[in-house]
C-alpha cells in the first residue's frame, strides 16, 4: 500500500496528468481508506486551481501607455 508521504510527493505529477494508470490506481486505493490524504489532495487542488484566478488582474491603462511611450521612443535610445 502506498504511504501518505508517497502520495503527497505525487500530487504535483497527478495534477500535471503525467502519472501512469498503475500509479493513479495506487493513489486511488490509498485515498479510499485515508481521509487525511483525501483532504490533502482536495486542499492542494484548491490552491492550484484558484491561483489561476489571479491572472484575471487587468493591466492598467497607465501600463499600456508606458509601453507605447517606450516603443515610440526607441529612436532616441542609444
Amino acid at each position: 500500500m502506498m504511504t501518505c508521504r508517497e502520495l503527497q510527493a505525487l500530487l504535483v505529477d497527478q495534477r500535471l496528468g503525467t502519472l501512469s494508470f498503475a500509479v493513479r490506481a495506487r493513489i486511488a486505493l490509498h485515498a479510499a481508506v485515508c481521509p487525511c490524504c483525501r483532504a490533502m489532495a482536495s486542499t492542494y487542488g484548491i490552491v492550484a486551481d484558484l491561483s489561476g484566478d489571479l491572472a484575471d488582474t487587468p493591466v492598467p491603462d497607465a501600463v499600456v501607455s508606458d509601453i507605447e511611450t517606450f516603443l515610440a521612443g526607441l529612436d532616441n535610445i542609444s
Partner: protein
Amino acid sequence: MADASLTLAARARSGDRAAFAEAIRACQDRLYRIALGMTRNQEDARDILQDTLMSAYRALPNLQDDTRLEPWLCRIAANCARMHLRARRRRPTVPIDDVEGGFDETGHRLERTRAWDVDPADAIDRARLCARIEAFSLELPDEYREVWLLADVEHLSMAEIAEILELELANVKTRLHRARLALRKRLAAELA
C-alpha cells in the same frame, strides 16, 4: 518592408523596431503580471516593466534566430523583478523546508489533515480564498514564488518555466510542489 522569411527574433535583432514592438505587445500582459506577481505593488511592477523593456532592447544583438521571444522576454522580466527585490529590504518569508508536514517512520501522517469548509464554486468563498492566496504568496521565498506564479497563475508548462528560469525540470516541479504546500499550510491555519 519586412522580410517574411526571417523569424521575429531575426527581424528584431536586425533593427526592425516594428518586430520588437510586435513581440512586446504580444506578451505585455504576461510581463506585467510577472512583475506584479513578484512584488504585489503596481508602481514597482511599472518600474520593473520599464527595466524589462530597456534590457530587452539592449540585448537584441544577442538574440539567436531561433530564440522564442516570449520566454526570452519573460526571463528578462523575472530577472529584473529579482534584482528589484534584492535592492529592497528583505521581506520575511515562510520557512519552506517544513512544508511537507510530519510523517512517521512508515510514511504515514502524524497529524490529522482536514478538508476546508469552503466551496470554491461559490463566488464569495472563491474571491476570499484568492485574496488570501495572493497575500500569502508574498511570503514565499522569491525562487518559489516565481515558479508558482508562472505555473499556477500564468499556466505555463513545466518545460516553459524551466526554459524561462533556466532550471532543471525536476527542480521546477519541486519548487512548485513546495510553494503549493506552503500556501496550503497557511490557508489551512485559517480554514481547517
